[in-house]
């Protein structure tokens, strides 16, 4: 009885699925989904070789400092870094005084201790990076109706994020003639900028890294657009995963210990079972 019922229930589901399949197949044949410009022209991020890549990778502090400089002098005009505090910058190799000086270089919201009125004051190491806009409405108003996203977690919030940031920053170009030929409707609207590494190909951010020497690096590295993009990608890899070095440093001893313990466990297993295996 239960088997007859079961076969009936099974037929119910399989026939319903077959019906869905038939309808789907009919639609797929009669109205094939049109190709889209996003599908045809969107590119995966370029390879980016960072010091922090791979199981043995560690942050290159010199590069993180350069990337921080690019963020401070270029990106921070529009993008917040709200999850990072100035005190965190010690991980980049700055000492206490340098961190204090960096913090003091930023103006953060404060309160007048006498009147309680809102004012501003120089930053302290305990402060977080201040936001460039008071709120999203102000951000939209200043940026062609797009809110510049917070960058703290950007490299973890996109597929292959570090390479994505690097590719996006160096990927601005004119729209390919091929694209305009096949998708005349997909012409980049005024005010937006074509970039094949961006999901829908057109983004509101104008190319932020425009030319060599836009920042002047203290360590003598030549500030090409490519170099600046790499450095800021490395810096944002750190802001998203500040414990990356610690994580890998912890991982190796743990794995080595586990190999050791497992081998001992295996030998113990052989020993215990010695009298029970085939004669």
């Amino acid at each position, binding site marked *: 009885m239960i088997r007859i019922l079961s076969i009936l229930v099974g037929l119910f589901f399989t026939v319903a699925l077959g019906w*869905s399949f038939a309808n789907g197949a009919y639609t797929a044949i009669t109205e094939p989904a049109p190709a889209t410009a996003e599908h045809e022209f969107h590119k995966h991020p370029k390879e980016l070789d960072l010091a922090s890549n791979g199981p043995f990778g560690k942050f290159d502090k010199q590069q993180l400092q350069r990337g921080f400089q690019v963020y401070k002098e270029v990106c921070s005009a529009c993008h917040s870094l709200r999850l990072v505090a100035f005190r965190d910058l010690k991980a980049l190799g700055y000492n206490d005084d340098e961190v204090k000086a960096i913090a003091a270089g930023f103006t953060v919201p404060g309160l007048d201790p006498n009147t309680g009125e809102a004012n501003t004051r120089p930053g302290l190491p305990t402060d977080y990076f201040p936001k460039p806009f008071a709120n999203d409405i102000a951000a939209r108003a200043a940026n062609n109706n797009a809110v510049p996203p917070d960058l703290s977690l950007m490299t973890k*919030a996109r597929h292959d994020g570090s390479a994505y940031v690097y590719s996006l920053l160096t990927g601005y170009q004119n729209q390919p003639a091929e694209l305009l030929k096949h998708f005349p409707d997909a012409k980049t609207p005024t005010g937006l900028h074509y970039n094949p590494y961006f999901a829908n190909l057109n983004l509101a951010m104008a190319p932020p890294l425009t030319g060599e020497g836009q920042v002047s690096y203290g360590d003598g590295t030549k500030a090409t657009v490519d170099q600046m993009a790499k450095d800021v990608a490395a810096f944002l890899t750190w802001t998203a995963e500040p414990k990356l070095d610690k*994580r890998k440093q912890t991982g190796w001893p743990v794995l080595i210990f586990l190999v050791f313990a497992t081998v001992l466990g295996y030998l113990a297993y052989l020993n215990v*079972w010695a009298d029970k295996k085939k004669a």
Partner: protein
Amino acid sequence: MSFPWANEYKPSHPLMQWIDEKLPLPRLVYNAVGAGYPVPRNLNYWWNFGVLAGFCLLLQIVTGVILAMHYAPNALVAFDSTEHIMRDVNWGWMLRYAHANGASAFFVVIYIHIFRGFFYGSYKAPREMVWLLGVVIFLLMMATAFMGYVLPWGQMSFWGAKVITGLFGAIPLVGEPLQQWLLGGFAPDNAALNRFFSLHFLLPFVIAGVVILHIWALHIPGSSNPTGVEVKSESDTVPFFPYFVAKDGWGLGVFLFLYCAMLFFAPNALGHPDNYIPANPMSTPAHIVPEWYFWPFYAILRAFTSDFFFIPAKLMGVLAMFSAILVWFFLPWLDRSPVRSGHFRPTFRKFFWLLVIDALILGYCGGAPAAEPFVMISQIAAIYYFAHFLIILPIVSSIERPDPLPFSITEAVLGKDDKAALGNPA
């Protein structure tokens, strides 16, 4: 306990004797996972996964309880409190990655454990209750994992919660009020996040309770084994301690190695990048996908694209998704073959491997965008899924001619069993 030759707990130390008289807890442990539990000697490594699942549950409870000390279940600060754990709490990053990857590890282990049960007919008499309780545990795990994924309050948390709670809206008549009642609002927000946190904390302890029942029910008939032949005499078994403690112990080492390799070197590989974007009800992600362990069921849900007579497609999908698991409850009565082990069932074995491939295809399609050809592939795969359990299994188990079984476990292991030669089954 289960067999007359099981070792008896005989404490020698006066303190242990004193405890044994007052509260025989050490005796319980001894009989459950000690030398007092005789286990078939021929268990292979697929039998390690029960112990591993128990370990995963413990791991999740320990890491989870500590995480809960630092996490704030409020929609305004949940995302930032998660990042606070990652950045400012001592070893917080390790706890959170251990918990997130621990969930994945738990599901890997449990899926292997379940498919072990499928292949070796572990659900058959006299172990039906073990199986039924196992399915209950799996359902509880799914609920717990789903609610846990909502807690970081990222984009996928929010939209995943919206899609899954939206399924209740498909129920005729009461659907919409039920959905609003469950969420405490029209969409997931603070009320939903708070109750999800509360339940996410509670359910693992319910799971632990059902796990105790699962093990209790298992210990009545004793463990099954790869031949599916029941234990006949003492030579068929070995005591759990030290034999299976040693075998499970080094298996645990291998498991921990793989798990820690993920935790320390690819902790975000199984997560979705969108969940590092704070929840934003105004911006829908391009592809809403649940965690990988829900993908096969998600594919079944999405496979129903056309209304079936008077039943809306969405309701069909919801019905099918839940039925895909509920059908496991009936498995002991759908598969009527008296032979348990797939090793001796040539026809069943072929369909079993088809089911494995089918589940992998469904999983892949569930993670892919809801577009062709993935929808059509998942429709075919879902047809096989339901046909396998509801049509093929009952028919195959009636008409199949199984291969000859060994006389006993001892014969299967040693090639001969003296009792069989004497024609004197114990």
